[in-house]
């Protein structure tokens, strides 16, 4: 973030000072980390996107309220059904609950335990708490949960679990030793073939209680002692649930109850229905869009300089601050938080930011900035070719209240901007790079412009603003070279023809058409793109089915128009090149159309016009801003 801010706003290569101070550089490593300290105070989600906040309007607010009411009703009904099914048993609330192999167990308000976060291959859950005075049967309720895959109750891919063994230990007040009380028999509401609940009584390997194929619904097992046990006051109970099958066959949510009576473990139809009702309510949950927000941490984080840039080697404590070299630009600027940093950057007196911004706008209109090193205004950067012009543009821009529109207007109505891009051989000799702006620059469109132009010219463009990313057609096999095969479901309808801005970006394999045309990787800041001219680009323009589809449509449009061949070709050419063709250009295209017609017939007419459209999409005149 510091490096990006440097490149984008300050035209400064701040990253140079990330590892150590350079003797002759004005920006020190301490100052680098003082800027870092501004950013170090935000709440970031890390790998997840966050923090976010819901964007609730009136309509969604009503939907949300209705959902909440329905959810509360469903949960009440479920709790009632669960309690009714367990009459004669009382819920045991352990005071200590741990899982081996990493995951965390959490005790929920309804007395159930959930295994969250890390999903272990195997685990032994150990639960300890006050013992009941009388004890004969342990009731293990395996509970479905909306947050589990397949709604659980287990954490394997389909929701299964295997309880390999259940053990019960008692520590009565007198002794510190745990005494095991073996269960005598076990019964369950449902048992998977070959995985009956009796298997959980012994230490034998490979046995246990499973529930295939009835996933996503509650199950109950009762484990009974040979004879009821009376326990003294103050005794402690320990239950161990071994789950050693492997491959994540551990309980995701469960509850323990104790009872004195032996009752058949039944999952009542009321209970099952109540759960299904709860699931149904969730399906009707309104989708409230969320948006990323910038949020400062509630408790500030101490920022330390990293020696040699290594986060493993933190050094002196630093507080937010601006580099001394620029301190005279905006004297006494507050420096409490990121908002202060933003205000410092856009302060009307911050002349450097104005020059950098105006220069980048100039670069967009002329192909290169007045300072050619648009991200390096330092001593090693390029000297401005027209310093007075840069200074004047920056000054007027500030006086215009930072109006981008006014700045654009000023540039595009200038005499220099409106010059022809025709290259005079004498100029080429004297100033091959056109730094003195004797002419306007010609350059190939950026990747997105090419596709967008083809969309526009063919009439396919859907100019809808905003929304989630879309997947226009891309070749098969793009993800054969990535760690995981991403899904690329080609968008249908309007989303097939949205501006390229909306195309989804996967870091490990970006949209190939864009990459071919020098779209940068998304890993590093890019303030100026390269402009190459390669055979792979020629292949993409000539043969990419995504473009061919548009060319075909364009050809069909031209064919359907009225007028002579020459008129229609002229219209098509003008749409592509923003100018009418000259006589020779027209002659070549009309000749090509006729040669493509070949044999008579409706099909060949369509084919010929499509071929012409394809030629138009491959012209330098189509691809080049002049």
């Amino acid at each position, binding site marked *: 973030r510091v490096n990006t801010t440097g490149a984008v706003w300050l035209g400064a290569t701040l990253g140079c000072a990330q590892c150590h101070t350079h003797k002759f550089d004005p920006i020190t490593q301490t100052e680098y980390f003082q800027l870092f300290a501004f950013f170090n105070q935000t709440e970031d989600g890390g790998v997840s996107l966050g923090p976010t906040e819901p964007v609730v309007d009136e309509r969604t607010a009503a939907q949300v309220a209705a959902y909440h009411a329905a959810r509360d009703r469903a949960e009440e009904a479920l709790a009632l059904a669960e309690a009714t099914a367990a009459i004669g048993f009382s819920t045991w609330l352990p005071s200590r609950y741990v899982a081996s192999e990493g995951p965390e167990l959490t005790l929920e308000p309804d007395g159930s335990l959930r295994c969250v976060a890390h999903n272990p291959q195997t685990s032994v859950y150990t639960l300890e708490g006050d013992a009941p005075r009388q004890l004969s049967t342990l009731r293990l309720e395996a509970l479905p949960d909306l947050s589990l895959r397949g709604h659980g109750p287990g954490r394997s891919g389909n929701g299964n679990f295997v309880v390999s063994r259940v053990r019960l230990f008692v520590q009565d007040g007198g002794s510190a030793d745990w005494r095991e009380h073996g269960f005598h028999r076990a019964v369950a509401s449902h048992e998977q073939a070959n995985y009956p609940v009796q298997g959980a009584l012994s230490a034998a390997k490979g046995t246990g209680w499973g529930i295939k194929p009835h996933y996503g619904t509650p199950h109950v097992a009762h484990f009974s002692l040979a004879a009821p046990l009376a326990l003294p006051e103050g005794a402690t109970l320990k239950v161990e649930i071994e789950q050693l099958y492997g491959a994540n066959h551990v309980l995701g949510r469960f509850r323990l109850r104790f009872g004195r009576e032996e009752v058949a473990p039944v999952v009542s139809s009321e209970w099952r229905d109540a759960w299904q009702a709860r699931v149904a309510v969730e399906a009707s949950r309104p989708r409230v869009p969320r948006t990323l927000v910038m949020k400062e941490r509630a408790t500030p984080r101490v920022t330390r300089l990293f020696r040699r840039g290594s986060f493993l080697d933190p050094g002196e404590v630093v507080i937010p601050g601006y580099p001394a070299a620029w301190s005279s630009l905006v004297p006494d600027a507050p420096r409490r938080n990121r908002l202060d940093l933003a205000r410092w950057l856009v302060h009307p007196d911050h002349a450097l930011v104005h020059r950098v911004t105006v220069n980048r706008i100039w670069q967009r209109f002329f192909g290169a900035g007045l300072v050619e090193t648009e991200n390096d205004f330092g001593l090693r950067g390029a000297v401005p070719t027209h310093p007075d012009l840069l200074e004047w543009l920056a000054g007027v821009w500030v006086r215009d209240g930072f109006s981008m529109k006014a700045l654009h207007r000023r540039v595009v109505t200038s005499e220099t901007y409106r010059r022809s891009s025709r290259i005079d051989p004498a100029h080429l000799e004297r100033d091959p790079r056109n730094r003195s702006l004797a002419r306007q620059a010609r350059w190939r469109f950026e990747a997105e412009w090419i596709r967008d132009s083809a969309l526009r010219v063919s009439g396919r463009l859907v100019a809808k603003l905003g929304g989630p990313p879309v997947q226009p057609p891309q070749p098969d096999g793009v993800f054969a070279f990535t760690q995981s095969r991403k899904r690329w479901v080609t968008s249908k309808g309007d989303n097939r023809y949205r501006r390229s801005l909306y195309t989804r970006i996967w870091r490990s394999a970006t949209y190939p058409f864009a990459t071919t045309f020098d779209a*940068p990787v998304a890993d590093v800041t890019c303030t100026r793109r390269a402009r190459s001219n390669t055979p*792979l680009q020629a292949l993409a323009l000539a043969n990419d089915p995504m473009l061919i589809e548009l060319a075909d449509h364009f050809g069909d449009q031209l064919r359907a128009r009225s007028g002579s061949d020459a008129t229609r070709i002229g219209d098509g050419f003008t749409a592509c090149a923003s100018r009418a063709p000259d006589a020779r250009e027209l002659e070549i295209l009309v000749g090509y159309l006729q040669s493509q017609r070949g044999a008579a017939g409706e099909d060949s007419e369509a084919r010929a016009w499509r071929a012409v459209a394809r030629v138009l999409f491959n012209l330098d*005149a189509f*691809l080049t801003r002049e």
Partner: protein
Amino acid sequence: MNDAERAAADLTRREFFVRGGLGLGSIALSQLLDADAAAQVAGPRPQIRNVIYLFMAGGPSQFELFEPKETLQKLDGQSAPASLTEGKRFAFIDGDRAKLMGTRRDFARHGESGAPVSELLPHTAKIVDKLCFLRGVRTDEINHGPAKLFMNTGSGRFGRPSMGSWVTYGIGSAAQELPGFVVLQSGSRGPRGGATLWGNGFLPTRYAGTPFRSGREPVLHLDNPPGVDRDDQRSFIDTVAALDHQRYAQVGDPEILSRIAAYEMAFRMQSSAPELIDLNREPKSVRRLYGVDGDEPSFARNCLLARRMVERGVRFVQLYHADWDHHGDPNNHLGGPLEARCQEVDRASAALVTDLERRGLLDETLVIWGGEFGRTPMSEVRLRIGRDHHIDAFTLWMAGGGVKPGFSWGKTDDIGYSAVEGEVHVHDLHATILHLLGIDHEKLTYRFQGRDFRLTDVHGRVVQEILARG
């Protein structure tokens, strides 16, 4: 050079092409760069022209393949010495509790050089006298993604150019009708990190590696649109060229001539690339040597393709083969899964070296075989037995022009934990590869965000000891 001067140099290069009638964009850049940039980055006389990098993604176990350790066998089941593990970071195992594990594989010494190779690589064993083993390779990164980035770009973070990009940026490629830097993939999936492993970073995009896809269209969009035959395509390209020439006459922009040439080259690629991947053109005996079976995508197929590419002047070919991770899960332990990986690559790796030599190409090609790191001398016990990631010392081999054949460099301690002599850091490996290509790794730089970047950053030592000629 500062950025402005560099941009000027870029333009001059392009103009040079155009005037020389070679305006071919990235692909023929070599022509000029061989004469131009190469002069600036030149170190020694180039010993090789091409690199084929067989990347064993996941980190093969040196202990099961190349590094038998008597002492480690004896200490099997004992804890690792605390002096070695203290302060070390491991990916999964607990250094204090992990137990040393000797290999269960049989080893024999092979060839005149007597290099040890295990039973798992019988074909590699037969060519050890052509190989140069580096036994003390060291990396900085403990996890797959960063370690792969480090091995390819010299940095564990995103954003740096890959070795193949640096090389083609520095000295271009002699390939006339193919990209200069090609990436091939075999196995169940692509490597962790994806395109960043062959990315151009801050170098111009044209130096990015081009993934060659399996199947009949190796480069995107070689196929004409439906209903367009080769004659149609010819007249399409002629028409575009005629119109572009007309525009050139109007505006005089040399970039237009580059574009016309790029279309011409593209047209030629449409026949040369399918010709390249048509392995039926190879004699049956050659296909058998590699173990190419029909048209099935495989590592063997990619090895044979790599040879055909360097024959055609492709500068840098990188093959990824997935799933060399052996932690001890049911699908990645040191039993069946390791055996399967070895079977998939052994015959073809050896065949590639043999075939290159037969054709006289081995002198000018460097073959590299290895992963992003090795495996620990300690076992990792899950449902099955494996080993964890190990960065202090692991083995890779090279073969070909410029490196000593039948040679072994570097020695690890009694349990194979670290190098006791001949350590080769990844930066050193990079410096050496560039050296063999005739590039001084300290001179191959690119100015980005105010700094001259190098593949070797501020490190790197050419490993003189393995060079056949100084």
